[in-house]
């Protein structure tokens, strides 16, 4: 809603477009976390995620002139990262999700994160198709609304909504199992 407010990264983008390497460095640092997380949770392993992140930023280098604002840049990075990840997953047919068990960095390890929820989340991501996984991540990691997700993935809005609905239902079923957290919830 507050899009009209000046984004300090718009200036950095303008400088980067005119060849300022330091400004480009600022943009890379500002957005790498988002691109890397998207790649990591789509592909499931750190190595693949790092490769994809690198490819996305290399591609950005050649497309910098076509990007006119930081908002546009965020959209572009999410779009390219999601589409590349979906393509990669389709090419591989089935990702080795067993390796996710060893991935300690897949989820946020901040103080309020719930390890049980992380396990459910891991199971949910593993069972989703690549596009559905991208929809879920853009919604809950990147906090995009369904319209923006549809635009980013070039997908009909109703498809986005049905992916989100199914993911939520699946998550609800998982968390409704015989878990200590659930017991506490019932008691209140």
């Amino acid at each position: 809603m507050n899009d009209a407010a000046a984004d300090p990264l718009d200036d950095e983008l303008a400088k980067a477009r005119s060849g300022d390497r330091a400004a480009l460095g600022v943009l890379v640092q500002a957005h790498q976390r988002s691109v890397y997380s998207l790649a990591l949770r789509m592909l499931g392993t750190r190595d693949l995620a790092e490769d994809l992140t690198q490819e996305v930023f290399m591609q950005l280098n050649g497309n910098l002139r076509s990007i006119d604002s930081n908002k546009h840049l965020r959209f572009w990075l999410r779009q390219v990262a999601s589409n590349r990840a979906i393509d990669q997953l389709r090419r591989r047919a089935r990702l080795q999700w067993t390796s996710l068990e060893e991935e300690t960095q897949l989820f946020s390890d901040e103080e309020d994160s719930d390890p049980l929820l992380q396990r459910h989340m891991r199971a949910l991501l593993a069972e989703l198709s690549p596009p559905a996984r991208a929809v879920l991540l853009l919604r809950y990691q990147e906090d995009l609304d369904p319209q923006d997700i549809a635009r980013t993935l070039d997908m009909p809005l109703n498809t986005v909504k049905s992916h989100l609905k199914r993911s939520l239902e699946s998550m609800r079923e998982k968390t409704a199992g015989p878990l200590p957290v659930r017991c506490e919830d019932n008691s209140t």
Partner: protein
Amino acid sequence: MSNDIESRMRAALRPVAPREEFSQTLLARTLIETAARPKPRGFTAARLRPMAWWLTASLAASLVLAVGVHQHLEQQRLQQSGLEARREVLKALRVTSQKLNLAYEAVKSQSTSLDDEKSGV
């Protein structure tokens, strides 16, 4: 309940930072790539504009030359046809003059033979 699940999913899916080592590598590679890349806009603006000017100038010069050559050839053609017409007229006059001379000779010889006949009587 749904909002609770959604907020917990958001919490679990907060973006995570890549390894510091990777972060540095990514930054370095991106910057190296930028330095190595030629600047296409510089090329188009600085080089294509004079190229376009030269192209326009040479096209205009070619056009002027073509018009000049065409006019010169047309003039030569007209001059040639004028000379040809003059030759034709002179030839016609010459032929007419010869015919008149023949007629004059014929008339003259006829009148001479009539005079001789009269004097013989």
